[in-house]
């Protein structure tokens, strides 16, 4: 272009160099300097996978709330003995089927702090129902906090008698305090629900670990080996899925020998729940393995000579682990409900081990429920826990999905 415009032949003397009209820096150019990011942004960009999941999860208000509720509940099962006002089997023969008592703050217009009134008892002969009424003219019985009450063995080992709340004292010793009512043997429902929480919540965790291991194992085998192993596992999964769960659980629970101790039965039930439930997880693992196996990074790792073990555990596993944990979280409520249903029907956990299902077993007949509706109270924590696990699982699943 220049040459065509310039008529001068190349042999002529070079023209005087004209000074540039604009300023040009002579300092070497550093391309990175224009892309400088703030420290906070860099931290966000370089965040690890788990941190990113956490950052995304934090935006789900409901999931975080559910997580907090669950954390509190699991923290509570560590110290049930301390939280429960009574022992698991403390009976009060004079106070059978007491309705939930009200906690008052004011006595005759005067602030006394939380207290309960004494109870009047009479038998309604027409309805054959025990009727309790509050003696509002009795002196207020203030509830005690951080006090000595029913003795217990902490987790079955350490002896103690310290409670967060205790029934109030009166002249004769202890005045009754049944905040959630009492059952047919005069046992405090609140304490029993708290003790039942320990069993009902752990059963989901143990069951899910059983089904997690089975699901990883069989799903991994099917996804990694393919071929006839895959076919076999697929057929078994299909078969297990086409038998309705509850009848199968019932049949399996009926196998457990009557001679087993309640603790053994407890573990038996968790294993049964896990044995049937692994199919969903196995399917998830298999399909993820099959699709990830073809991804570029997996092929690259293979070409660089990584062993199958290293490919699976170092490269493939991290990419579906988060997803798997989310699925597992969503599977826990099914187990808790399964245990509740089994115990409700009387084929699950047996007394003296107490779960929410065992408590609900008492509320089986309509007559009892109509006369003493507070026996249905264990339903409330069941629904709360199941809802919380569902919310948390949904949030986790969304957060674990890298394509959102």
């Amino acid at each position, binding site marked *: 272009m220049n040459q065509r415009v310039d008529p001068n032949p190349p042999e002529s003397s070079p023209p005087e160099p004209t000074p540039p009209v604009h300023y040009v820096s002579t300092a070497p150019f550093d391309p990175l300097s224009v892309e400088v990011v703030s420290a906070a942004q860099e931290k966000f960009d370089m965040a690890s996978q788990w941190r990113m999941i956490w950052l995304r999860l934090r935006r789900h208000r409901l999931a975080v709330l559910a997580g907090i509720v669950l954390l509190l509940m699991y923290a509570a099962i560590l110290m049930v003995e301390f939280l429960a006002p009574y022992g698991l089997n403390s009976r009060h023969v004079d106070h059978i089927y007491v309705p939930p008592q009200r906690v008052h703050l004011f006595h005759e217009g005067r602030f006394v702090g939380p207290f309960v009134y004494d109870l009047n008892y009479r038998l309604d002969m027409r309805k054959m129902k025990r009727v309790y009424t509050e003696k509002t003219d009795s002196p207020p019985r203030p509830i005690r906090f951080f006090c000595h009450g029913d003795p217990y063995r902490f987790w079955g080992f350490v002896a103690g008698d310290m409670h967060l709340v205790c029934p109030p004292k009166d002249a004769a010793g202890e005045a009754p305090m049944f905040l959630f009512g009492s059952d047919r043997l005069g046992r405090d429902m609140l304490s029993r629900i708290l003790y039942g929480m320990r069993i009902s919540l752990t059963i989901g965790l143990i069951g899910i670990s059983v089904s997690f291991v089975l699901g990883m194992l069989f799903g991994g085998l099917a996804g990694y080996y393919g071929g006839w192993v895959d076919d076999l596992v697929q057929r078994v999964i299909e078969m297990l899925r086409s*038998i309705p769960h509850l009848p199968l659980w019932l*049949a399996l629970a009926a196998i457990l020998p009557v001679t087993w101790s309640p603790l053994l039965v407890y573990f038996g039930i968790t294993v049964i729940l896990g044995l049937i439930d692994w199919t969903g997880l196995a399917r998830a693992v298999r399909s993820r393995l099959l699709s990830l196996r073809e991804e570029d990074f997996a092929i690259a790792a293979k070409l660089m000579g990584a062993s199958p073990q290293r490919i699976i555990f170092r490269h493939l596993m991290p990419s579906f682990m988060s997803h798997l944990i989310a699925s597992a979280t969503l599977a826990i409520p099914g187990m808790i409900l399964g245990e509740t249903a089994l115990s409700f*029907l009387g084929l699950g956990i047996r007394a003296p081990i107490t779960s929410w299902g065992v408590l609900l077993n008492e509320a089986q007949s309509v007559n009892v429920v*109509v006369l003493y509706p507070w026996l249905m109270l264990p339903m409330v924590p069941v629904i709360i826990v199941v809802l919380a696990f569902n919310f948390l699982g949904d949030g986790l699943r969304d957060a674990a999905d890298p394509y959102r």
Partner: protein
Amino acid sequence: MLRYLIRRLFVMIPTLIAISFLIFVIIQAPPGSFLDTYMAELQSQGENVDQGRIEFLRHEYGLDQPFYMQYLKWGIGLLHGDLGYSFEHNMPVRDVVGDSLWLTVMVTLATTLFVWVISFPIAIYSAVRQYSIGDYVFTFLGYIGLAAPSFLIALILLYFGHLWFGISIGGLMDARYIGQPWSWAKASSILSHIWIPVLVIGLPGTAGMIRRLRANLLDELHKQYVTTARAKGLSGWRLLLKYPLRVSLNPFIADIGSLLPELISGSVIVSVVMSLPLTGPILLQALRSQDMYLAGSFLMFMAFLTVVGVFISDILLAIVDPRIRLGGGTTK
């Protein structure tokens, strides 16, 4: 299509055989048989045991034979419609179960229809008006439906039915029709009672179905062909009905596979709570007393119902959705 049908049938048969074997193993697993416990019970009461009858039963049902022979005998009997012998009731299983099998089929069918009819409009509304107040309300109700197991709902319904109306809403027909032969009056009595159990059993399934259909429809609505159609000026309703809805209809049919086991599980426990003459109470009693042929036949019947339901749903799916490949070939 015919080839697909036949292939699918051939997959079904080994599945059923495997299931029957599994069930037989489970009901055989407890040590001892019903006859042993029965005899021990009679002897402890000081009653005379008719040794001849026990021997006859033991021989008739092959309890003296090895495990696989017992299984073969039971399986072949099932094929002939001989469900075995109920030790506890002392009569053939077929007479014990009576109407309960048919009533279970009826309730399950009605519940499936209920789930479809209810979840269909709600899911469409929720997806089209995403994040509207109605959507939130239905999502919340759906969560409650998922979280509250059906037997708890049944219990609450029983409680309020008693509290408000002073009647017991349990049962599936008027007491005077129980044990009566089928008649119009009996059928209409059942029809007027059936909706409460259907509602209770179907609620969790409905909640799940709404959730899945809504998610499916939302996925479709965000696809490019919808944008294209909208850009070309297709009106909202026509667009919705013509394309995305049809595609997302699949779960309605395909989910029978997961819906049916759920409904049957639900019906077992709900029928115990509400004392319905379905399979649930008899199955529970049979499992408790180790009445193995009765329990086994019930389990087998439920599995059969599910497998056949899935089979039908697969065929319907193949008819509705041309994208489903009929010929062999593995799907990944």
